[in-house]
């Protein structure tokens, strides 16, 4: 996804852009542009401050360490909008770069994590030893076991805030780390038929496509059980989608691309948990022909980086993957 901080074509030029553009990468379909007004971004920033950095609730922060790329909505909010609103410094962290000394000097850091960040942070406890209070934030992906372990290792001075949302919807719901049920954001409502278990929400922060107004409601592709008017339990996805370190990958799309490259071979993509990425997947090919497998391996290597599987495996004769 990319962020365009320049005026959107057609918008009135001015000192500040009227809207920000976030584009899906195309790993789940054709790339799509989504536009958000600055008022929507500001409203979401205020919601996040209330959840993660509320000074009046003694949850203020003195710096933000962000593992989330600012070209994504989550990264933009946590790396740019929230620090700017709070007037605190932000450091952009890399998974393989050591934590800067600055972080060790912060007393109340907020850490915007991606799934793989928890394994990294778990190895950097001495750098976080001086912090009085640590707010960990995680967004819209399966929390890897390292997340809860880090929370336990950091003890009572740490708390985890999980965010549920997407590029299209923005923040939908939140929950304290380690709990099961999600509570809708203050300005968000369920918009589902009573019989449906597909999450559908309305809020004033839904993004719009360039060729139309914001939708009144959006269906997310998540299967949920609504517990009451404000809470739900997530049961899975209605589509064949995994989030590899938080990046959406459509498994059917990957299988289709490989089938197009090497026709005539049954291809199956199977999701699996990954301790680093949260989720990953394996491609199973219905052949044990070394020549065909070599062709498929070349096709796998040609996939975009975000869509590459953990492994390519031949299906055993019984057709069941091991």
């Amino acid at each position, binding site marked *: 996804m990319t962020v365009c901080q320049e005026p959107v074509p057609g918008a009135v030029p001015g000192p500040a852009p009227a809207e920000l553009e976030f584009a899906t990468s195309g790993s789940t379909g054709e790339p799509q542009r989504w536009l958000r007004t600055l008022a929507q971004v500001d409203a979401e920033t205020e919601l996040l401050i209330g959840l993660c950095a509320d000074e009046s609730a003694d949850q203020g922060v003195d710096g933000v360490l962000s593992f989330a790329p600012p070209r994504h909505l989550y990264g933009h909010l946590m790396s740019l909008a929230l620090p700017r609103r709070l007037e605190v410094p932000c450091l952009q962290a*890399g*998974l*393989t*770069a*050591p934590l800067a000394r600055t972080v060790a000097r912060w007393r109340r850091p907020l850490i915007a994590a991606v799934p793989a960040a928890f*394994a990294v942070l778990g*190895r950097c406890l001495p750098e976080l030893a001086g912090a009085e209070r640590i707010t960990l934030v995680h967004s819209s992906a399966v929390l890897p076991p390292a997340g809860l372990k880090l929370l336990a290792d950091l003890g009572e001075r740490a708390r985890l805030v999980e965010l549920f949302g997407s590029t299209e919807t923005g923040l939908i719901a939140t929950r304290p780390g380690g709990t099961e049920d999600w509570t809708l954001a203050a300005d968000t409502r369920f918009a589902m038929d009573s019989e449906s278990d597909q999450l559908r929400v309305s809020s004033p922060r839904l993004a719009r496509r360039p060729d139309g107004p914001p939708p009144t409601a959006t269906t997310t592709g998540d299967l949920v059980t609504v517990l009451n008017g404000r809470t739900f339990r997530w049961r899975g996805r209605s589509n064949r989608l995994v989030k590899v370190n938080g990046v959406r990958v459509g498994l059917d799309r990957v299988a289709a691309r490989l089938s197009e490259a090497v026709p005539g071979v049954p291809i199956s993509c199977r999701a699996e948990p990954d301790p680093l*990425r949260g989720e990953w997947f394996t491609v199973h090919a219905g052949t044990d022909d070394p020549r065909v497998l070599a062709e498929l*391996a070349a096709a796998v290597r040609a*996939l975009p980086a975000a869509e590459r599987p953990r492994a390519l495996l031949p299906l055993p004769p019984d057709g069941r993957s091991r």
Partner: protein
Amino acid sequence: MTTTSGTDTLRDPLRAALAALLDHPLDPADDEASLADLAPERYDSLGVLDAVGLVERDFGVSVDLVVDDLRSTFFSVASIAALVDRKRRDAAVLGMLS
């Protein structure tokens, strides 16, 4: 580049393990080359962390993400072998002193 016998011994099993991890053949002639250049499709930041886990599990050393600058130590087969060799020698010395 001159190598020690320790890293020479380590390179073969390390190269094989990394080749399996990255699903990419690795040639001894490329031991000094950047793994990110040899296997760009897999050796991104997540791939480096996968390699750290592999080295710790299969080669019995502990990698410090802060002290052991991964950008240099996990650059190539040769640099990883040198790191493992150094850590093993350090551990041996510490074992002798304890």
